[in-house]
């Protein structure tokens, strides 16, 4: 589903990603961890072309992301959920979800509404469809954001620390939605420090350190006996 070959990304002189190689299979849930500033967000942003890559290759569902690829074509196949939700504040929850299917996928209003209602129901917010984002709690906003991304029927979902801006009591409701999604077979790349989620839902754990994949493997395996000393040091800090 996703093939990343020797991905490099620099901001001016600062090289953030220094040759990332990774293959992600269909329906796989990959959890990405790493210290702050190690390049996790940059990596995710490269996967849906929010950042141009400096060199290397990314192929998603057979489409190469290198420069002349149709950016919008790829982005609609790749859903993204942000740490800070980024809901559109001037639209209701339902409008947030139904806008893109209509203007990007050219769905009819009726179709979009059907998809929207179904997804709002799925994330457990059927009773909040007409609320504006500022009237929703953080956890609810993030669930709307997930529904919004899913409304485009993406093949892959990217999550960039989806729970780290939330109060602790709201983390569970968002993780539950993500868990359901994984169970239904969505291909997911999740940057998170929720180790319980990584252990339980993750098929693979990837530790990014200083712009490269320093270690990867079965989450439980990596947690229990990390091979790389950098992984050991990192895990001992967060566990």
């Amino acid at each position, binding site marked *: 589903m996703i093939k990343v070959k020797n991905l490099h990304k620099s901001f001016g002189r600062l090289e953030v990603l220094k040759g990332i190689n990774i293959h992600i299979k269909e329906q796989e849930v990959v959890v990405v961890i790493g210290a702050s500033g190690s390049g996790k967000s940059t990596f995710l942003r490269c996967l849906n072309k929010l950042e141009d890559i400096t060199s290397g290759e990314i192929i998603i569902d057979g489409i190469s992301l290198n420069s002349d690829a149709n950016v919008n074509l790829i*982005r*609609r196949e790749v859903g993204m959920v*942000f740490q800070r939700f*980024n809901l*559109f504040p001037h639209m209701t929850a339902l409008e947030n979800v139904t806008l893109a299917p209509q*203007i990007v996928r050219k769905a009819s209003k009726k179709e979009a509404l059907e998809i929207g209602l179904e997804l709002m129901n799925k994330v457990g917010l059927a009773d909040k469809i007409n609320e*504006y984002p500022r009237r929703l709690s953080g956890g609810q906003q993030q669930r709307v954001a997930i529904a919004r991304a899913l409304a*485009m029927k993406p093949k892959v979902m990217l999550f960039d620390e989806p729970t780290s801006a939330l109060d602790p009591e709201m983390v569970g409701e968002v993780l539950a939605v993500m868990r359901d999604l994984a169970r239904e077979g969505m291909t997911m790349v999740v940057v998170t420090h929720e180790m319980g989620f990584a252990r339980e839902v993750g098929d693979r754990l990837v530790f990014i350190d200083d712009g490269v994949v320093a270690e990867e493997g079965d989450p439980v395996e990596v947690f229990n006996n990390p091979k790389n000393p950098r992984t050991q040091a990192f895990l001992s800090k967060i566990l």
Partner: protein
Amino acid sequence: MVIDWGLGIENLPILLRGAKITIQFTVVSVFLGSILGLFFALGRMSRIPILKYFCVGYIDFFRGTPLLVQILLIYVGVPHLFGFTMPDNYQYIAGYIALSLNCAAYTAEIFRSGIQSIDPGQMEAARSLGMTQYQAMRYIILPQAFKVVVPPLGNEFIAMLKDSSLLAFIAIEDLLYSGKIIVGRTFQPMPIYLTVALIYLFMTMALSLLVNYTERRLGKSD
């Protein structure tokens, strides 16, 4: 000479006719200027260098030079440069053009700062859903920026209303020019210009009440 305070009231009909012209020029120029200004704002933020620097140059020129000079450039300079004789009433065309172009430069900066005040995460979210740059602007950024720009646009409206008095210099019969003519006839500058000033004051105050009201309405809706 005795000051005849009653002259202000006596000449009110003529002055109000001038005020109508003032309002007409202001409304049209702010309307056209805002539309043009939005394009200059977008152009200025564009990544295409020629477009960007053209817009930067335009905005800097019209903000950095006196409006009266701009009026004269368009009223006298342009016909002279292209060697055409000014048609009758050319001063009106020149007046509309000069005020609109000037207003566009100011509103461009208002739109730009309004657009840039929107969290970049909004653009990213829109783009990550597959929206084009245009769709993201149209559906996500501009509706939010619009609320932010209402108060400064209102202020620009008020500034334009006052600055339009420079049109009197090219014999457009606006409020100030009407006053000038009456003064020439009556030699009573104080009552007349004071009345003129009060009419301007009345108009700007009415406008700022309107702006405050709109601002409150917009504030409520979100």
